[in-house]
């Protein structure tokens, strides 16, 4: 049998094959399917049109329906989407529908998948959202698709996939203070470009990864799509298993790449040589160091999303802002209800993160995707014409956070909060 990467092994196992090679098209069995409120209704409509109004879902226990995008809005059409999903979930008695405005509601789908145990080592997860690659942090294959694919999986439990070539990215060394996973991934994307990994898998490894928490690993895997990759993946280890605990929704299988596995590219970095990094408007690969942008004034700061709204991200931000006042409008958006509870429990210097943020003058929103992708006009923290925003989100295309005439800099929670304190882009080491 030929040597394989983690990605190749998982795809082979789900195609019922001994081994696979890059370039092969496969039909694979899907373990978990995820969709949300913006694309879910179309998934359901295509599903019902093709498989019938009363068609059975292939496996209800493997289907996570997680509304998170347009929740806290008066927008009539957005609300109709939620009502549509409420009806579908009730009719089908879906066990994993995280219904808005009930105690089942969770928040951002990728964070919810991890919290609820859908991210399972060795598994295969498909989602109708480009950042579905986040789940690869748990040593599983996960990728984003469109609504037709989503409907097809809902009906059949299968999907066609092309086996990707793999890129190996090694992050060695001990993480310096005030450097985070966001800096590493912005550095990598800036290095290889927004299509530097198109159609490929990115496998992260090295000492800095081994010492990184799951939230950081999820940020890395989440943003491989910003380099065009199909999936990001990190072999599951004790850190992953400890996070999962007893919440796994299915069997766990630890998969590692073979020693002789083939990579089309290997990139090595010592994290000691990486500085706090930003992506300038309007592309995630428009890399600069925070220091080189130190004269750039900002109008607002935003800390939230599936790559910046975890308890680890808020702990980092609280450490920076503790006992100080922000100089610009600063928005805090916990990714999920769980994180929303945690910020009221977790303390830094005997103060809860919530109290630290409120006393610093930050505005705290409700858990959802909020302004990460703009959304309806009344969305919390939506960017307005001419505004310059520094944000822990994952994408800064024109108009991504609201107005097409706004400018978004992507940065870590350390750098974003440091900038909020001074009103201009600030390297957290220079405070």
């Amino acid at each position: 049998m030929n040597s394989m990467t983690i990605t190749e092994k998982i795809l082979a196992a789900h195609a019922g094959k001994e081994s696979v090679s890059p370039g092969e098209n496969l039909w694979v069995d899907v373990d978990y399917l995820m969709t949300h409120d913006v694309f879910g209704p179309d998934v359901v409509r295509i599903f019902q049109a093709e498989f019938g109004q009363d068609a059975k879902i292939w496996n209800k226990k493997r289907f996570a329906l997680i509304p998170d995008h347009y929740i806290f809005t008066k927008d009539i059409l957005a609300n109709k989407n939620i009502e549509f999903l409420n009806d579908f979930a009730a009719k089908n008695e879906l066990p994993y529908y995280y219904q808005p405005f009930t105690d089942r509601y969770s928040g951002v789908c990728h964070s919810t998948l991890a919290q609820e145990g859908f991210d399972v080592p060795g598994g295969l997860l498909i989602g109708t959202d480009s950042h579905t690659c986040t789940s690869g942090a748990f040593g599983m294959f996960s990728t984003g698709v469109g609504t037709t694919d989503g409907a097809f999986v809902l009906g059949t439990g299968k999907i066609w996939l092309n086996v990707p070539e793999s890129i190996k990215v090694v992050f060695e060394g001990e993480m310096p203070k005030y450097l985070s996973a966001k800096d590493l991934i912005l550095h990598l994307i800036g290095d290889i470009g927004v299509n530097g990994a198109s159609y490929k898998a990115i496998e992260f490894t090295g000492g800095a990864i081994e010492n990184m928490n799951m939230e950081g690993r999820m940020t890395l895997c989440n943003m491989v799509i910003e380099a065009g990759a199909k999936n990001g993946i990190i072999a599951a280890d004790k850190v992953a298993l400890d996070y999962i605990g007893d919440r796994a929704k299915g069997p766990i299988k630890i998969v590692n790449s073979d020693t002789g596995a083939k990579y089309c590219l290997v990139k090595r970095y010592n994290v000691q040589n990486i500085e706090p990094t930003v992506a300038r408007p309007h592309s995630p690969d428009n890399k600069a160091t925070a220091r080189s942008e130190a004269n750039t004034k900002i109008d607002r700061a935003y800390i939230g999303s599936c790559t910046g709204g975890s308890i680890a991200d808020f702990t980092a931000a609280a450490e920076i802002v503790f006992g100080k006042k922000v100089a610009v409008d600063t928005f805090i958006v916990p990714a999920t209800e769980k994180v929303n509870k945690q910020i009221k429990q977790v303390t830094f210097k005997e103060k809860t993160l919530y109290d630290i943020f409120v006393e610093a003058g930050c505005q705290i929103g409700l858990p959802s995707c909020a302004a990460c992708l703009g959304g309806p006009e009344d969305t919390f923290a939506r960017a307005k014409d001419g505004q310059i925003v520094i944000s822990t989100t994952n994408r800064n295309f024109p108009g991504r956070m609201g107005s097409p005439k706004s400018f978004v800099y992507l940065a870590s929670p350390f750098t974003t909060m440091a900038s909020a304190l001074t009103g201009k882009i600030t390297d957290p080491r220079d405070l």
Partner: protein
Amino acid sequence: MSGQRCWIFGDNIDTDQIMPSQYLVLPMDEMLKHTLETQSESFAKQMEAGDFIVGGENFGCGSSREQAPLALKKLGVRAIIAKSFARIFFRNAINIGLLLIEIPSVEEFSEGDLLEVNVKEGLLKDATTSKNYNFFPPTGLVKDIFESGGLIQYLDNKK
């Protein structure tokens, strides 16, 4: 001269440009009016069914929204020609039966050139400049899905 006009766009045209997020909740016929509006004020108003889109590198990057290729298909775009396509956009286009053509020398096309395509022969003709371009038509499973008219139709044919 035969053929239909092409509309030129740049590199990294992401799906937020093709269909901005605030319009995703609109009914399709309303959504169509906003197609590519951040990149061209005239495209959605003036394009005609059968027209071509020419992009650069990484066309369709970003969000997985199928509304992006679907809007272009519903408007009647004959094919999108680009140096390269982003992965999710590529598979969404195949799954809904929208033709994508990869050609390295897209700079040779000018706004409004009249183009003709023969998918079976993998031949694209610029009638304005009288130049011909070869491309690799879909093969294998991708060809089967595309020729069925999309993934759902492919499934129907298998039944």
